[in-house]
């Protein structure tokens, strides 16, 4: 038997077994797609799906994003029941804090739009915010907004839940198996792996911050870049913090998990990274900035101990919006990346519509708004349709 004859034949190969890739595979299988393989160079929850803060919010600044996240939050709310796995979801809401009048004006506009979408967000005063979270020092803030139906989840069970549900529907999940080259053979793709070639009619690249590398293998190019983002976790405390708190100007956020730990992050200035390497080392500079920020925000936290810090890559596109659809110049090769730190919360809904699209159903409007081709065909006017609620 030749190596060619031993190649695994599939209809759809998904590269990246993060929440996005697995959710797409699961939704495809649920819609009748057969012969799906999901490939990942590492183990489940190794990449950004296992490293994010687990925030799931519906407070956005465009109607499309608000409605998408309303749908995604609904999927999350039923996930445990449907997938038979505990996802530790807690709907304590999201509290956004604004330091300047310009930021307060943005929140005001966004709240109006969110209310028009039936989201119960309220624009509130700093004093109201302090009533919600008495530990806050609200003196630097001029306004706030609060939506009680936003949530925090534990990210890992979403990855396992989608993986198991996909596997039950016949999806083959091959972890620890990197794709090392991608070639074309007629209309098919041949993915080289250490375990032999895999032939696929269509490829979905859901490799997050690693997507540009995968796209290059396929002979295309993607404009997104990896940006290191760090998070810390404290010792567990008695439940005291109801909402996720986010300071929109510094990008600092924190929430209390159902395990009692405070989990939060803040962005450092973007570091020079000309080769666009994915960097996941932990830095003392982050701990210092986060500790200072947290103590200013909640002075009582000074004696709380940090037990762990880690880093993961934001996958950032030039205009902050995701990149979806066919990779320009490579028909049959689909991308879903550039979510800029929001890919986890958007995955449940994006994957549902992505699978429908791949099964030939009319595309959701995000396929037009986020088309990857906007950067290659000159159709992306700078700043148009820019989402304002990109935090962190």
């Amino acid at each position, binding site marked *: 038997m030749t190596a060619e004859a031993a190649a695994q034949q599939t209809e759809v190969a998904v590269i990246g077994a993060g929440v996005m890739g697995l959710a797409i595979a699961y939704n495809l299988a649920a819609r009748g797609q057969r012969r799906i393989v999901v490939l990942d160079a590492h183990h489940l929850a*190794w990449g950004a799906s296992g490293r994010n803060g687990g925030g799931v919010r519906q407070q956005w600044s465009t109607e499309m994003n608000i409605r998408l996240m309303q749908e995604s939050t609904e999927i999350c709310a039923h996930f445990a029941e449907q997938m038979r796995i505990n996802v530790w979801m807690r709907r304590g809401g999201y509290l956004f804090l604004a330091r300047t009048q310009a930021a307060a004006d943005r929140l005001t506009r966004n709240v109006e739009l969110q209310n028009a979408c039936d989201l119960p967000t309220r624009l509130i005063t700093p004093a109201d915010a302090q009533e919600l979270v008495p530990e806050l020092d609200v003196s630097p803030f001029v306004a706030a907004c609060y939506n009680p139906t936003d949530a925090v989840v534990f990210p890992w069970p979403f990855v396992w839940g989608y993986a198991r549900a996909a596997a039950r529907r016949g999806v083959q999940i091959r972890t620890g198996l990197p794709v090392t080259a991608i070639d074309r053979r007629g209309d098919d793709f041949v993915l080289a792996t250490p375990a032999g070639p895999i032939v696929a009619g269509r490829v979905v690249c859901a490799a997050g911050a690693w997507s540009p590398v995968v796209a290059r293998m396929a002979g295309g190019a993607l404009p997104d870049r990896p940006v290191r983002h760090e998070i810390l976790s404290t010792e567990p405390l008695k439940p005291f913090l109801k909402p996720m708190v986010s300071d929109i100007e510094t990008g600092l956020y924190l929430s209390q998990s159902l395990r009692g730990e405070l989990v939060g992050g803040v962005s450092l200035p973007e570091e020079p990274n000309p080769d666009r390497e994915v960097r996941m080392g932990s830095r003392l500079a982050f701990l*210092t*900035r986060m500790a200072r920020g947290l103590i200013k925000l909640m002075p009582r936290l*000074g004696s709380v101990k940090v037990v*762990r810090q880690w880093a993961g890559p934001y996958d950032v596109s030039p205009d902050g919006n995701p990149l979806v659809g066919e990779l320009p110049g490579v028909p049959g090769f689909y991308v879903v990346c550039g979510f800029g730190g929001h890919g986890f919360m958007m995955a449940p809904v994006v994957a549902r519509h992505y699978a429908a699209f791949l099964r030939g159903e009319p595309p959701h409007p995000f396929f037009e708004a986020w088309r990857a081709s906007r950067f290659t065909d000159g159709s992306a006017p700078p700043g148009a349709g820019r989402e304002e609620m990109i935090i962190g």
Partner: protein
Amino acid sequence: MSRKVILCRCEDVTLADVQHAVKLGHANVEEVKRYTGFGTGPCQGKECLREVACAIAAAAGRPALEMTPFTARPPLVPTELSVLAGSETE
């Protein structure tokens, strides 16, 4: 018996929990850490990593020497935010 053997005292992870995780296909230290939460408490695995690694190897039928530890995360010991805020590095 294994239901009552606690391997990770910070997070109450038992030998049975580790065996169950291996049975579900989580066959290395990093994956079992994520599935059971072992090593994520105040000691960050300093007390239990060796025991859990041996338990994974035994449950998976592999030599213990094949097990590699999970990525060590700073800080070295639980550290107060007020101490970190005083660092010169930002």
